[in-house]
């Protein structure tokens, strides 16, 4: 092979190998102790907290109210975690909202980089900081779908859309609610993560919450007797399909209009 062909080939190969190596590295972004104990513990939680959360949430969850550079020159700022309880920690960690790459970024549903044991440890640690709400135990089977639908439309559909497809509120993207567990839904309603309002038991009782959770879970498989639901988001996809049909009919015109060759 000539020298001219060899150089680009070698470069490509090197790039491929480099990419593979980068991807093959252990999950970045989580600082963990080299040896972890076999079971969850507040101590493990404290260690994980110190390595991953303290740069924004401060020592012992006291919060950092003015953005300042922390370890690794990452600008850190975060609300205090004292008193947020196990529920909040569980929600933010299990959805992948936290850790947040940038303090101005919106928490989004992300791949969870922590193991279940690590999450339990962190939750136990945050709960130990000060008394706060425990992880709720919703019972969707005890709820009523009809009442859940009406409650969801009243309190939630404005942001999350009638069948929980998500949407937009000024300043943030509202996530769709598909793939969430009953516990996560109940936690979100009670805590109000990020810009979401928080609904106390005085506003939405536990029984009503069961119904809402039942309804949200049902939106994972909405009733689509009409056929292919094209995303369940309404007229946008319907319009796209109408135009595709119109164009295909125009093509049919070309076929029908073609005369025999003389």
């Amino acid at each position, binding site marked *: 092979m000539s020298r001219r062909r060899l150089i680009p080939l070698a470069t490509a190969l090197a790039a491929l190998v480099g990419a593979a190596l980068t991807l093959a590295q252990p999950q970045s972004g989580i600082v963990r102790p080299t040896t972890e104990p076999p079971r969850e513990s507040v101590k493990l939680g404290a260690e994980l907290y110190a390595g991953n959360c303290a740069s924004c949430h401060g020592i012992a969850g006291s919060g950092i109210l003015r953005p300042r550079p922390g370890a690794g020159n990452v600008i850190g*700022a975060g609300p205090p975690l004292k008193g947020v309880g196990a529920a909040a920690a569980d929600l933010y960690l299990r959805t992948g909202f936290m850790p947040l790459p940038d303090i101005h970024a919106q928490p989004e549903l992300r791949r969870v980089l922590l193991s279940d044991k690590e999450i339990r440890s962190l939750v136990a640690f945050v709960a130990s900081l000060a008394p706060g709400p425990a992880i709720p135990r919703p019972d969707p089977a005890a709820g009523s779908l009809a009442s859940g639908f009406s409650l969801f439309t009243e309190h939630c559909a404005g942001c999350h859309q009638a069948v929980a497809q998500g949407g937009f509120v000024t300043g943030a993207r509202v996530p769709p609610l598909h793939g969430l567990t009953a516990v996560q839904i109940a936690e979100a309603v009670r805590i*109000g993560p990020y810009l979401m309002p928080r609904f106390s038991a005085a506003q939405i009782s536990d029984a009503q919450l069961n119904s809402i959770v039942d309804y949200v879970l049902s939106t994972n498989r909405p009733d689509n007797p009409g056929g292919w639901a094209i995303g369940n988001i309404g007229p946008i996809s319907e319009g796209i399909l109408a135009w595709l049909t119109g164009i295909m009919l125009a093509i049919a015109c070309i076929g029908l209009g073609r005369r025999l060759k003389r």
Partner: protein
Amino acid sequence: MSIWRWLAGAAVLLIGRILRRRRVSREDAGKSPRETSADRTQERRNVPEWAPARGTELVVAVLLLLGGLFAAGFVVVYAEFSAAKLPNELLGACIALSVAFIALALALFAHRLVPTEELEEDYPQEHPEEQREVAEIVASAGSRITRRRLLLGTGSIAGGALGLATLAPVLSLGPLWYTAPLFRTPWRRGTRLVDESGRPLSAAVIQEGSYYTAFPERGDRENIGAPLVVVRVEPSQLRLPAGRAAWAPLGILAYSKICTHAGCAVALYRKPTFRVVEPEPALVCPCHYSTFNPATGGSVIFGPAGRPLPQLPLMIDAAGNLRAAGNFSGPVGPSWWGVRLGRAR
């Protein structure tokens, strides 16, 4: 006669017909198209004779049969399933395929089984003679009239008046220049706030970080002046317009839930978990994303709304329940010509 004789007779007739047809076509096959047509008729042909396409005829027949089959399938599916279990996809596919096969048959028919001629024809010409005659007829018919302008004038007056009279009943569709209903709301001083299920809204229940929908205890809920959105803000954060200092007891604020832009319900509320990096609390409308700041009297901070959200003054009664302390700061709902001319009443 016995049935066998009937069958035998039918078979003879059928076979004879087939043989006769074969004989005729064999005779025709040897001739040119012109000769066959000359045989059949002496008249002039408008549509020229084209060679047949017997294979296509069979294909068209098959397609038509398939179309009929699927149409029958539609009827069968319709009859077979109960309304609750009827699969929409199967039903739709049956009838669509039936129509599609017939369409295909017609298309083939059009392309192969009928002559597609290309003819020439003149475009319709102008008719200057007739145009002149029309004008002349109208003019000469009117030549007897001497007071043309008088008749035209009175004619227009009569026609116009009759037209207006015909349209007059339309005015009963609704109130005309009477726009007072646009100012009316069901709220009065002392009207108690209730939630969706009719329970009085207690001040203690209203917490920061959430939003509540409220209605007047009495009155039509569907009136756009009825629904409220109630939020609570830390009193030190309040920057209400002049004269509204007493409108928000304990920092509890009530606003009309109907957007002043285009009338949708302001059903979104954003609350910051961490104010340092997150925006302030705001009420947002999902239609065109008009965003209102409850702490500053419902002023517009984003979106196309041209007017702030009307605020309802609140008071807390002896039982701790919320009541209206008056009517809204402005008319409820979308703007019109006189929206800044009056107060909500």
